[in-house]
């Protein structure tokens, strides 16, 4: 009982401290993780085994961590090292791509291909945002896309806010389509043993159909502003050449090849047996080897704070899991849904969406994985359906408010640097209805497809 109380207190304190930003979030989760080890496992449970299981270090030294012949799940208990190693690897690859100007080139190339017409740019950038976010973190996608959008808006004299908001939404939506698109999906995939193919054929289909709905929605929502700007093309001969974005042609070619390799490896990992930990390590190693003297600067640019944040977070959630708190939450959901699976789906998707709109979706998803696992075991529900529901709820819900997802914050701040201030009201007026539409649509699609 003492261990359970301590685990809950530490978990809630962690959430409050993350929200208040008194300390940086990685310091908060690491501190709370340390307290979990000392107080929950040491003082409350007096169990060294629970602590060792949560730290989960020995899993790295097993063959199945790097190569899984069949379907293999990382233990959902404790630190999910596969997620951390994969994210670190992708960070290095993305830094390599950014260094050579890949993202800016891609955005400018697409704008040129549609002859710098505002409405086609609006549509293609939304699709580009969703596509890139399927493989690359949404922060990087929006950092580059929003910057190019602002640059184009100054050349073509249009208001970039509608386009940036649409891109942000599509980045979050695109992230939900694949196992590597959004951190909650990586955690869900590695914890429950799902492959890239499993995600793309389930959440990917939901995201694809939702993207069509969202394209129509944003076009209608911003049609007046878009149509006003549609005529502002003028002379485009003085516009920057996409090639100017490339800072190192050799590096550009290598980065593109590495990116394509990463995509192929991820798409085929269920067939090849290579785990995401292996893919992350391989991609990082190849990027560093081919970067030569720039390798050190790439390593320095890795967002190690996010990786530390994950480590601490997994330990805190491990505390909740080891003490049985998450089973209590699972049985509570089971009880209020009265064993009705459709109601259970509705509860999970809407609670995930609403929670993710206001709090970080990563700790939420990490907490919910053992909950849905327990629900599946006790209520006889297909775990995969609950997993797709959780992924969609957490990934999409974050779009509703300015603080719901990292991409939102980055998009708003990038626009603000150029004087385009997006307040809560303006943001939520367009993004909250879009979120509700997509979550509702996804829920209906889950019902139709799986029941």
């Amino acid at each position: 009982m003492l261990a359970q109380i301590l685990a809950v207190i530490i978990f809630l304190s962690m959430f409050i401290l993350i929200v208040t930003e008194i300390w940086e979030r990685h310091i908060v989760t690491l501190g709370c993780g340390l307290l979990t080890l000392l107080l929950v496992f040491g003082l409350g449970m007096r169990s060294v085994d629970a602590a060792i299981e949560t730290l989960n270090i020995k899993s790295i030294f097993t063959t199945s961590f790097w190569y899984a012949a069949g379907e293999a799940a990382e233990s959902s208990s404790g630190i999910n090292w596969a997620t951390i190693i994969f994210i670190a690897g992708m960070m290095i690859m993305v830094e390599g791509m950014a260094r050579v100007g890949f993202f800016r080139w891609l955005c400018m190339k697409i704008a040129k291909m549609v002859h710098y017409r505002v409405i086609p740019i609006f549509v293609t950038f939304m699709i580009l945002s969703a596509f890139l976010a399927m493989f690359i973190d949404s922060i990087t996608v929006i950092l580059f896309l929003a910057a190019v959008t602002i640059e184009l808006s100054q050349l073509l004299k249009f208001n970039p806010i509608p386009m940036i908001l649409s891109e942000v939404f599509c980045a979050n939506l695109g992230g939900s389509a694949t196992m590597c698109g959004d951190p909650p999906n990586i955690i869900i995939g590695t914890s429950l043993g799902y492959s890239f193919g499993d995600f793309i054929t389930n959440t990917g289909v939901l995201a694809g159909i939702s993207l069509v709905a969202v394209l129509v929605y944003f076009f209608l929502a911003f049609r007046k502003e878009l149509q006003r700007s549609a005529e502002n093309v003028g002379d485009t001969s003085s516009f920057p050449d996409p090639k100017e974005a490339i800072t190192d042609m050799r590096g550009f070619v290598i980065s593109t090849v590495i990116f394509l390799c990463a995509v192929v490896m991820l798409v085929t990992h269920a067939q090849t047996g290579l785990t995401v930990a292996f893919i992350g390590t391989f991609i990082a190693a190849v990027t560093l080897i081919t970067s030569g003297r720039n390798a050190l600067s790439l390593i320095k640019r890795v967002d190690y704070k996010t990786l530390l944040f994950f480590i601490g977070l997994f330990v805190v959630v491990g505390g909740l899991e080891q003490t049985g708190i998450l089973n209590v939450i699972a049985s509570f959901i089971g009880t209020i849904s009265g064993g009705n699976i459709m109601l259970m789906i509705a509860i999970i998707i809407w609670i995930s969406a609403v929670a993710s709109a206001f709090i970080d979706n990563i700790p939420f998803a990490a907490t919910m994985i053992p909950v849905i696992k327990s629900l599946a075991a006790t209520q006889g529900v297909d775990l995969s359906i609950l997993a797709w529901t959780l992924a969609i709820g957490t990934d999409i819900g974050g779009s509703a408010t300015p603080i719901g997802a990292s991409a939102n914050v980055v998009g708003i701040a990038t626009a603000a640097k150029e004087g385009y201030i997006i307040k809560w009201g303006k943001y939520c007026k367009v993004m909250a209805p879009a979120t509700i539409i997509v979550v509702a649509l996804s829920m209906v699609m889950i019902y139709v497809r799986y029941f």
Partner: protein
Amino acid sequence: MDKQVIISVGREFGSGGHEIAQKLSEIYKLPLYDHNLLDEMVEKTNLSNQELRALDETKRSKLFSRTVRGLNNSATHNVALLQFDFLKKKADSGESFVVVGRCSETILKDNPGLISIFILGDKEAKIKRVMEIYGLSRVEAQAAMCEKDRRRKQYHNSYCPGKWGDSRNYELSVNSSKLGVDECVKVICRYIDARIAGM
């Protein structure tokens, strides 16, 4: 003036700091930047002057904002950063000016032409002044004073390592209640002249 001089005036509400800044700008024939900074910024943003003023010198709400890789979504925060950027560009262009508040003593501290001053006052004298200028009752004046100073302090301290009103952050801290605004201006001018001579 052949040398670049930037006079930063921090102030407590009701201390007459703004009036002192105005007089300094007249004496040294320098432009004064206070909330009128927003008038210049309004062309470069999508917000109206009224909306910008509502966000001016206000602390961001931590509950409704989030930081990701040093970037923040708060409109208040982003307006503050735009103002800081605007002031830095003015300073970097070599322009001389007087600026009221806006963390200018910290934002522009690397500029060799910066002279930073903080104006404070006795509580009673400040209440009296606020009552006279704004036509408020004693209770209303006291409440307004507390609220304004609380907001300025929170705003300042969320962007600057040094605390608002702490004499260590300013070259000169003057209590305007002892000498009155005009005498304070004379004392400050003597200090500014000496500083300019030493530049």
